[in-house]
């Protein structure tokens, strides 16, 4: 047990060195490590100055490229940021889908002999149809089954389940299997749209991840206010260009409840009503790009967009035919702007002006370009940590760790003397290895994770203590230092493994079933268990062996 051949020593040194190297970047600033700062797009002079300084530091860095540069990944509770859990309502997605199928259903049943009335309004995700004549039931069912839309391109589930109720009723609903698939499909689409909305340039560190089939987690480090994100994501993003009827008589008629057929009243932000044609000239899918720009008249922020070829063509033709009329740009049932057509607009470049701030114009451009959400996003959990609190937590955690470490070290040296000092040495190696493992694995350190590290500091000496106690007992029964140490380690091994495997089970369960910060706690606890068994059983033993060989003590002071 005390023989450490050269290869074993080399291996131990390699592990310690490797852990140390992985942990090392945490001691330095990003600039020192040669990491280019991320351009956050902030425009205040202070941020620009900081950015330039970091950039200059990064360029001058002499940090060798072969050394690791990744630091411990801090959780949102430590670096500050917004965590949002959103949920998609599968029923709503199904209802939207059924709504879009109504036209097809109407078409196949469009034989006036077949149904009593027009296809009625749907009720949530079911659509009841009453036949004029029960004899036509078979015919109607056959025709309906011909509409067989599937989800996705190949092998999708049938969307509609068609059920006969009584003599003359047919219930069309979205089948359960399809509801699942639709929700999963909507989740994928939503993640893509959310990404394009929140991160149009692809530079920020927003993370958007699915959870289960209907939920999406959004984590935005550095963000201090959840309202902006909620606002950007809370809008459906349905954008249309509609011709408007601006004749005062039509508007007056509409306001008394008799709108021109095919038209409806829509208001703008200031409560001014517009009577717009329900059939849009251009929809969101005709928009190629949207960007924040400037109003040429007064240089205020505006949103510019370009239509696709066919959209531009349609828009040009319509504007050519409707000179002097208004057209309305409608977003989610609200008129954004309603300019008068002075001349035909060819080329497909359109601008929305309004009293936007720069940020609002940017957000709006991102929403328009990202397209329409397949359903509403509900926010069911929100957690925000300000950057100040995050920094405070790190300081508090670091201070508690250092104080804990010092207390434990003093206690061990008082209790065991020199050999206790060996245990302290391996305790420090343990912490370095934990930091190295966290950095190397890219695991996230959370506030409870810091608690996990401190707990590990307290418990890490346990394996050492078990061994030392055994050595004491062996020495008491008259063994020489060397044999006492050998026997001590040998007999303690099974106890140490049993004890740590049980704790490891708890950590593994926490990791598998926990969420967020709890997961972070589990990771540090599990890593701590592995590294403390290694340091206690290998590193301390090696220290002790070297010392026994060099000092050749008659009796262990233990």
């Amino acid at each position, binding site marked *: *047990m005390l023989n450490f051949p050269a290869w074993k020593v080399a291996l131990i040194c390699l592990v310690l060195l490797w852990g140390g190297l992985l942990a090392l970047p945490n001691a330095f600033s990003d600039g020192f490590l040669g990491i280019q700062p991320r351009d956050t797009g902030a425009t205040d002079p202070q941020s620009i100055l900081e950015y330039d300084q970091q950039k200059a530091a990064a360029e001058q860095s002499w940090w060798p490229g072969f050394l690791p540069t990744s630091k411990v990944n801090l959780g949102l509770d430590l670096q500050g940021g917004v965590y949002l859990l959103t*949920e998609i309502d599968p029923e709503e997605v199904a209802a939207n889908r059924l709504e879009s199928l109504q036209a097809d259903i109407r078409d196949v049943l469009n034989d006036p002999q077949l149904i009593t009335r027009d296809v009625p309004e749907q009720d949530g995700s079911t659509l009841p149809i009453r036949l004029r004549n029960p004899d036509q039931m078979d015919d109607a069912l056959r025709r309906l089954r011909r509409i067989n839309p599937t989800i996705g391109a190949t092998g999708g589930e049938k969307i509609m389940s068609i059920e006969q109720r009584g003599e003359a009723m047919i219930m069309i609903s979205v089948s359960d299997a399809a509801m699942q698939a639709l929700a999963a499909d909507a989740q994928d689409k939503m993640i893509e749209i959310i990404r394009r909305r929140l991160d149009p340039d692809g530079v920020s560190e927003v993370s958007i991840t699915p959870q289960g089939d209907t939920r999406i987690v959004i984590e935005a480090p550095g963000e201090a*206010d959840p309202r902006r994100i*909620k606002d950007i994501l809370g809008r459906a993003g349905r954008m249309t260009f509609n011709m408007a009827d601006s004749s005062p008589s039509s508007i007056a008629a509409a306001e008394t409840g008799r709108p021109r057929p095919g038209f409806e009243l829509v208001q703008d932000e200031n409560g001014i009503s517009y009577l717009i044609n329900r059939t849009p000239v251009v929809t969101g899918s005709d928009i190629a790009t949207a960007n924040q720009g400037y109003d040429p008249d007064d240089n205020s922020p505006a949103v510019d967009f370009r239509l696709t070829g066919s959209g531009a063509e349609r828009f040009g033709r319509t504007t050519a035919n409707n000179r002097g009329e208004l057209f309305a740009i409608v977003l989610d049932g609200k008129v954004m702007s309603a300019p008068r057509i002075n001349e035909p607009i060819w080329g497909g470049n359109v601008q929305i002006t309004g009293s936007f701030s720069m940020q609002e114009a940017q957000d709006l451009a991102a929403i328009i370009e990202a397209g329409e959400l397949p359903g509403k996003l*509900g926010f*069911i959990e*929100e*957690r925000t*940590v*300000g950057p*100040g*609190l995050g920094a*405070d*937590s790190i300081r*508090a955690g670091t*201070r*508690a760790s250092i*104080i*804990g*470490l010092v*207390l*434990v070290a003093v206690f061990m040296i*008082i*209790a065991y*003397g020199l050999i*206790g000092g060996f245990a302290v040495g391996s305790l420090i190696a343990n912490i370095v290895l934990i930091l190295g493992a966290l950095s190397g694995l890219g695991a996230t350190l959370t506030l*409870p994770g810091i*608690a996990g590290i*401190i*707990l590990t500091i*307290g*418990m890490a*000496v*346990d394996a050492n*203590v078990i061994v030392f*106690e055994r050595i*004491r*007992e062996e020495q*008491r029964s008259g063994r020489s230092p060397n044999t006492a140490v050998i026997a001590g380690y*040998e007999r303690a*091994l*099974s*106890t140490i*493994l*049993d*004890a740590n*495997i*049980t*704790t490891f*089970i*708890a950590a593994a*369960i*926490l990791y598998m*079933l*926990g969420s*967020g*910060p*709890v997961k972070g*706690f589990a990771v540090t*606890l599990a890593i701590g268990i592995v590294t403390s068994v290694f340091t206690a059983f290998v590193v301390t033993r090696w220290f002790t062996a070297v010392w026994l060989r060099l000092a050749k003590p008659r009796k262990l002071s233990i």
Partner: protein
Amino acid sequence: MLLQYWPQKTDVKFMSFRLPALVFSVVLIAASFFMIFTKGLNFGIDFAGGSVIEIEQPVDVNEQDVRGVVGELGLGEVQVNAARGTGVEGIEVIVIRFATQVAEDGDQEAAQQVANNSVRAALEAAFPGVNIRSSAAVGPKVSGELLRSGLIALGVALALMMLYISVRFQWQYALGAVAALFHDVIITMGMFALTQFEFNLSTIAALLTIVGYSMNDTVIVFDRVREEARKYKKLDLGQVIDIAINQTLSRTLLTSGTTLLALLSIYIFGGTVLSGMSFALIFGVVIGTYSSIFVASALVLMLGIDRGEKAKREVVGFQGT
């Protein structure tokens, strides 16, 4: 060093105290259940749903001002408390809490988010430049799931540990260890009900860690019991257990000591965010150490262990390198 002055061989008759200890434990458990059912646990928003918003206290603003501003929003019962020195620099903060919002259209999740936004806006309007340190809003759907998954985690962990101990030892040990764990978890929860410390996700993490720690402690004593039982075949089981506990006593005290030192430093220096968790851990380490002796070992003594031929053939495992 110091340990040299520790009596080399302690000879405490632990098992002779097992009846008073049993009474003590039963009383504690009964009291815990009583506390949990009468006073209840002070569920944080993780499990109860609702919102917490923490603002840094501006110099000239006190709780009353904040209560006035938030009270006008009609959010039901709103608690506003000042907490001193929660950050490192002893920053004073004001904590605003309100429960799950009732929504007429049934969408409580959305109502909660709206309420959170309106509190933020009201605070910003009333106290320009206010620093919102953190805010959280948890809808009732999520909070229910968090509680359920927390309890499931606790259950699964207990079952797996029991399985591991049954395989490595004998079923009597597993039963003793798990009884000790339930004992620890129930009493710690009782303590939370008594002190009304907030019971949240971190507390569940702490409970699971206590389970791990207590199990760790128990396994170390059991390992010795098994070893000594093999050595002294003729000795009475109670005596064997006493020998095992005495032999591991200095280890138990030392490890509990270092762990408590580390945990105390989180409790004192780690800020309020970690105080609930470290409180649970501190209490759990003490109760876990007690239970590994007076619950787990005592139960093994009552159940008896198989020391015959079968026991000889059991897996010794892990010996040597």
